[in-house]
């Protein structure tokens, strides 16, 4: 194994870990902030370090500090299975984290005649890995609920188990339809397929080729991650907090964080399979390379415009009403962030100027396009995470039997029919 391979692999692993773990505090904050704004409230916006509040995202770090220093409480009625009781949240957390590891963040990098995958786990059976690992998470919920020796916890765990059974089938069947379409179980090949053009003018995204499979997949992903409207597992009006009732401090936080990683993973898989992954619509990686100088010029033009509007928005919104005597250091924060953003833009413009002189087969071109694709991936990931959050604050929770009816009576036949139609079309076209 060459040094280059080690560098690219390590880079991918670090990127995957950062994208999964650093996303948790951002998502927890986003959840509360978006919920607030949807309901015409403000949400957490006061916690700050030296006047820097970054819209309130510092709150999540304060929450983590609080949870770490909280008392670890073990219910005294739990006599047997203490080890598994403690381990249960970790099983869920780890499985959600591992499922994220086969997502490609950029197209295969070709350096010095070698091709490297930009995946933390460079395998070509990503879909199978995801299907296998993401289902293990429910074992953590089952252990936690069962070993709590609490009726509410047990009910929550049973609901999680039966919900998984009901929705894993349509999930797997809709994935099979996609596998037939893409003729591969490799996430990267799927994204490559989606960089083409459909009917001459539409981007060949999975959602446009297979709208029904996309709908079924997104619905089952909501159920799989126990997000609203399918969060009967922790339906607080009926069973307190379900499997999390007896957990406290960091054990509870593990469940909590595992849920957000699962949501992040779900978003990543949805965009990889149905929304073109790391690709811009209409443009494949080859197009980006062959028009490298135009890509650089586009970055040089788009970047200042985006930053200009961002600064304008920040100046307007990182403030308080004029009737208030003190703004709590928001004006100073805006000033510093404006300087940072402008100097960052200037630096990127300078780098782009240098890149403009480079040929499209140089190392710097490869790195630029890889970074661009990673940025697009993160952008799409954030959009889908926000979609998950908005749906949670829009729809009321389904009743338990309604969920089972939806899974078994509607989604399962639909996904079966979808497979048959897909197979007929694929065979007919070939």
């Amino acid at each position, binding site marked *: 194994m060459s040094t280059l391979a080690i560098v690219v692999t390590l880079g991918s692993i670090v990127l995957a870990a950062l994208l999964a773990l650093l996303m948790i505090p951002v998502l927890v904050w986003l959840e509360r902030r*978006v919920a607030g*704004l*949807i*309901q*015409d*409230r*403000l949400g957490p916006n006061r916690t700050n370090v030296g006047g820097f509040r970054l819209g309130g995202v510092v709150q999540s770090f304060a929450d983590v500090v609080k949870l770490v220093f909280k008392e670890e409480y073990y219910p005294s009625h739990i006599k047997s299975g203490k080890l598994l009781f403690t381990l249960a949240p970790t099983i869920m957390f780890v499985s959600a984290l591992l499922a994220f590891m086969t997502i490609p963040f950029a197209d295969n990098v070709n350096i010095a005649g070698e091709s490297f995958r930009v995946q933390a786990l460079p395998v070509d059976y990503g879909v199978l890995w995801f299907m296998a690992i993401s289902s293990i998470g429910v074992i953590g919920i089952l252990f936690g609920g069962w070993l709590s020796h609490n009726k509410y916890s047990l009910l929550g765990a049973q609901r999680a188990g039966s919900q998984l059974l009901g929705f894993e089938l349509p999930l797997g069947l809709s994935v099979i339809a996609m596998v037939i379409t893409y003729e591969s179980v490799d996430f990267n090949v799927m994204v490559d397929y989606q960089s083409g053009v459909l009917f001459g003018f539409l981007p060949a995204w999975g959602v446009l080729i297979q709208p029904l499979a996309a709908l079924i997949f997104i619905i089952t992903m909501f159920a799989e991650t126990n997000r609203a409207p399918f969060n009967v597992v922790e339906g607080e009006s009926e069973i307190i907090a379900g499997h999390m009732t007896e957990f406290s401090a960091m054990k509870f936080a593990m469940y909590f964080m595992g849920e957000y990683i699962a949501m992040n993973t779900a978003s990543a898989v949805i965009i990889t399979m149905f929304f073109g992954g790391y690709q811009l619509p209409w443009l494949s990686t080859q197009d980006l390379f062959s028009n490298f100088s135009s890509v650089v010029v586009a970055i040089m033009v788009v970047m200042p415009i985006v930053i200009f509007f961002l600064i304008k*928005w920040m100046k*307007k*919104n990182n*403030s*308080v*009403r004029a*009737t*208030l*005597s*003190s703004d*709590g250091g928001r004006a100073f924060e805006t000033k510093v962030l404006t300087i940072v953003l402008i100097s960052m833009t200037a630096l990127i413009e300078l780098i782009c100027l240098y890149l403009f002189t480079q040929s499209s087969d140089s190392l710097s071109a490869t790195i630029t396009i890889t970074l661009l694709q990673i940025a697009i991936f993160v952008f799409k990931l954030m959009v889908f995470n926000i979609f998950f959050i*908005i*749906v949670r*604050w*829009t*729809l009321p929770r389904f009743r338990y039997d309604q969920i089972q009816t939806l899974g078994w009576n509607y989604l399962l036949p639909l996904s079966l029919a979808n497979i048959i139609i897909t197979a007929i079309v694929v065979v007919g076209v070939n």
Partner: protein
Amino acid sequence: MNKKIKTIQRHGKTFKDRIYIPAIIEGLKTTIKHLAHNVSDINSVDVLEYPEEQPTDITERYRGLHRLTHREDGTISCVACFMCATACPSACIFIEATQREDGVDEKMPQKFSIDTLECIFCGYCVEACPCDAIRMDTGIFSLIGREREDFLLDKEKLLSFKGAFAQEDSIARK
């Protein structure tokens, strides 16, 4: 029998209703509209920026922190009749009576203290008082202390609070 019968149309049975998706999109439209509006102008969110902004809508009927009223000559109007302590459902009023020497009245409290940690702010003491000596019209809604003792308000403290509205003195004992 000439009753008017209004037939209410039942929803949820049509195909459009049963596939949920149009309804979900309608709901998403509403929430996204609120989100987009508030993100584009955060100061349009109508909230009270407490503690920088203080509430201005406290009315005369608001039951704030208690106070003991004065007579017109500035002395305490309480006659230590124990009516408030008897009416108190959480038994948080502690009174010790003494002889009043200045000829204005016969009795006055030596000690009068309210444990605000026990108090449920029901206002029964105000209703029970025959002398209009105790009131809850200070408009104070937050009491801050570092120790439990800080929340035990004594006679001097209760006399020092000013009423937030008109009628400063007792109207029953001039």
